[in-house]
């Protein structure tokens, strides 16, 4: 018997997507009447989305995998909502400062969010493509949002051209995979023509790796992060990364599933694993080595986000076991807090001078004394990014690396640990400038409420996970670790 095309369960499962998409449309429309209400509308939409998410059923699978709502997608959607809230906090003060408050900005942000929602809750190749486009196209526009800044336009152009190209590569791979297996549902794929299938999977993964900014598909990231408005850079570093790794986790856990699973046949494990290993090694090494020489803090954070993608890849390599979904998800939670926090500090320091953002590290000399809280917060975020206890970054790395060692990837973990040690240099360099250097041209500091709220929220997350890695281990509240482990139990 075929499953019903439509029903109350499916409708409830669709509700979060409908809320965000309709909310995005209405917020954009608001731009024609009350453009200043954009933030309020976006917050309202996100709040309703939280409610819709809470009421969503936990196992719905409809339309040949086009809609897959399980605990995994719910957890990732919750993370994406968190990233969106952080971005909203950062956006309003920055837009206000630059005189660019418009409701369309928030509308585009919500459209992008709806694409990410879809991306983490589907196994259907066509739906993945639609979601990727829905995620990307608003971001192309948002990258160029600071229209008077040449670098913003350059960022938008670069992201657009390279992004469309990678989408085309993905689409080609999807077509080949369909030709090989006769289905566009990843969960139903099995067997088929090996050569076509392998070529298809390869092109598919290239498309994903581009979005995840994995080396050697990372070239766009530093320029785009640097040129885009800081809140958008933060959104790309957190939300886009979370969404792509959610997708990669789902796709690869199908590909590397136990032999019993029919889907296991469509990726050649012997060929894919070494490739993934090399990508992991290259991504973390190139990211870290390039970050070493950066004087611009935003660019440094861009390279650092590439390096973190490299660590995350450790969890995607099955080794002697399976894909480490729990490790990756836990790391993403920690990564969300520390990266959003660091970008909040950068946003507070990125006032424009003559139309350009000046974010060279020497301008930040003495900031730690001028604003003790901001200095302390930045120090903790950077220490967490480097992976020193007692912060969230440490436990994220610990879980990820321990899982990798258990699966026999000791060599990779050694490289990852060496890379983490290396990253200390450029993270702590910022702290050195904050506290131990002087300058006669100090950076302007923006004390807007939004930045502070974002910093406090991020700080709370980083420290809470740091001191109680099994976060929320209080009676009545589910533990973070348990939550994460339960979420990946719905993967094959």
């Amino acid at each position, binding site marked *: 018997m075929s499953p019903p095309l439509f029903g109350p369960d499916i409708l409830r499962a669709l509700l979060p997507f409908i809320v965000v998409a309709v909310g995005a449309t209405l917020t954009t429309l608001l731009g024609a009447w009350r453009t200043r209400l954009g933030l309020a509308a976006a917050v309202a939409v996100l709040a309703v989305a939280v409610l819709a998410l809470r009421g969503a059923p936990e196992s719905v699978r409809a339309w*040949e995998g086009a809609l897959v709502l399980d605990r995994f997608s719910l957890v990732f959607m919750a993370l994406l909502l968190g990233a969106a809230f952080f971005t909203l906090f950062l956006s309003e003060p920055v837009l206000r400062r630059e005189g660019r408050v418009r409701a369309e900005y928030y509308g585009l942000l919500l459209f992008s969010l709806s694409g990410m929602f879809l991306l983490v809750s589907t196994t259907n190749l066509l739906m993945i493509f639609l979601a990727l486009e829905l995620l990307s196209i608003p971001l192309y526009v948002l990258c160029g949002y600071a229209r008077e800044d040449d670098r913003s336009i350059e960022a938008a152009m670069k992201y657009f051209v390279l992004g469309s190209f990678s989408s085309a590569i993905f689409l080609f791979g999807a077509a080949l995979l369909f030709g090989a297996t006769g289905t566009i549902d990843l969960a139903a794929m099995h067997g088929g023509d090996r050569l076509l299938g392998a070529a298809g999977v390869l092109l598919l993964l290239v498309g994903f790796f581009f979005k995840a900014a994995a080396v050697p598909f990372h070239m766009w990231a530093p320029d785009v992060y640097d040129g885009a408005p800081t809140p958008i850079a933060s959104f790309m570093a957190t939300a886009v990364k979370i969404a792509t790794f959610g997708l990669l986790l789902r796709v690869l856990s199908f590909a590397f599933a136990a032999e019993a699973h029919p889907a296991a046949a469509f990726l050649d494990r012997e060929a894919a694993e070494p490739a993934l290993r090399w990508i992991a090694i290259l991504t973390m090494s190139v990211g870290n080595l390039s970050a070493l020489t950066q004087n611009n803090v935003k660019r440094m954070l861009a390279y650092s986000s590439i390096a973190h993608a490299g660590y995350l890849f450790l969890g995607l390599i099955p080794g002697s076991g399976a894909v480490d979904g729990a490790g990756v998800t836990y790391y993403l939670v920690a990564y969300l807090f520390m990266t959003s926090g660091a970008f909040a500090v950068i946003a507070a320091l990125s006032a424009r001078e003559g139309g350009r953002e000046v974010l060279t590290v020497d301008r930040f000399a003495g900031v730690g004394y001028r604003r003790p809280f901001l200095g302390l917060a930045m120090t903790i975020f950077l220490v967490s990014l480097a992976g020193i206890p007692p912060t969230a970054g440490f436990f994220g790395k610990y879980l990820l690396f321990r899982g990798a060692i258990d699966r026999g990837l000791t060599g990779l973990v050694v490289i990852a640990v060496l890379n983490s040690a290396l990253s200390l240099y450029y993270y702590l360099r910022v702290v050195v400038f904050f506290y131990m250097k002087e300058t006669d041209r100090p950076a302007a500091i923006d004390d807007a409420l939004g930045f502070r709220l974002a910093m406090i929220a991020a700080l709370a997350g980083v420290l809470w996970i740091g001191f109680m890695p099994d976060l929320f281990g209080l009676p009545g509240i589910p533990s973070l670790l348990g939550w994460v482990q339960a979420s990946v139990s719905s993967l094959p």
Partner: protein
Amino acid sequence: MRAARFLGAPVGRVRPAAEGFSRKRSGARPGPLPFVSSCGDRMNGYAPLILVVVLALITPAMLLVVSSLLGAKRTERTKGEPYECGIPQPAPPRRAVPVKYYLVAVLFLLFDVEAVFLYPWAVVYRRLGLFGFVEMAVFLAMLVAGLVYVWKRGALEWD
């Protein structure tokens, strides 16, 4: 068969395009396609295509080579001009074009081209029934939202 396909169940080694036929020839086992059986055979199917590509490359190359070898060469100032038909150009071609044209083009794409979807819907309106009607209503609501937005923002006014 239909139900199984909806579930996404594997359909064996059938080429997707051939699925429709395999249903009619029930009983006939879907054998491997001629060009899937091995790598060497696979290339056979593409031989005409390769031939076309080779011809497509050779023909213009030959035309260019032959005309440059046999053709007369006279260089004049008029020949260097961008539009070569004997009429002197009235103004330099590189001048600013009002950005409104661009806007009109985008709006045309949005509202005119997307309205094309209405025609196939109209053709199968009865068969799609209520579901199709609701889907189309959603689609139109989105278009109308876009129209309202551009109207209100003044994108439809020329001055």
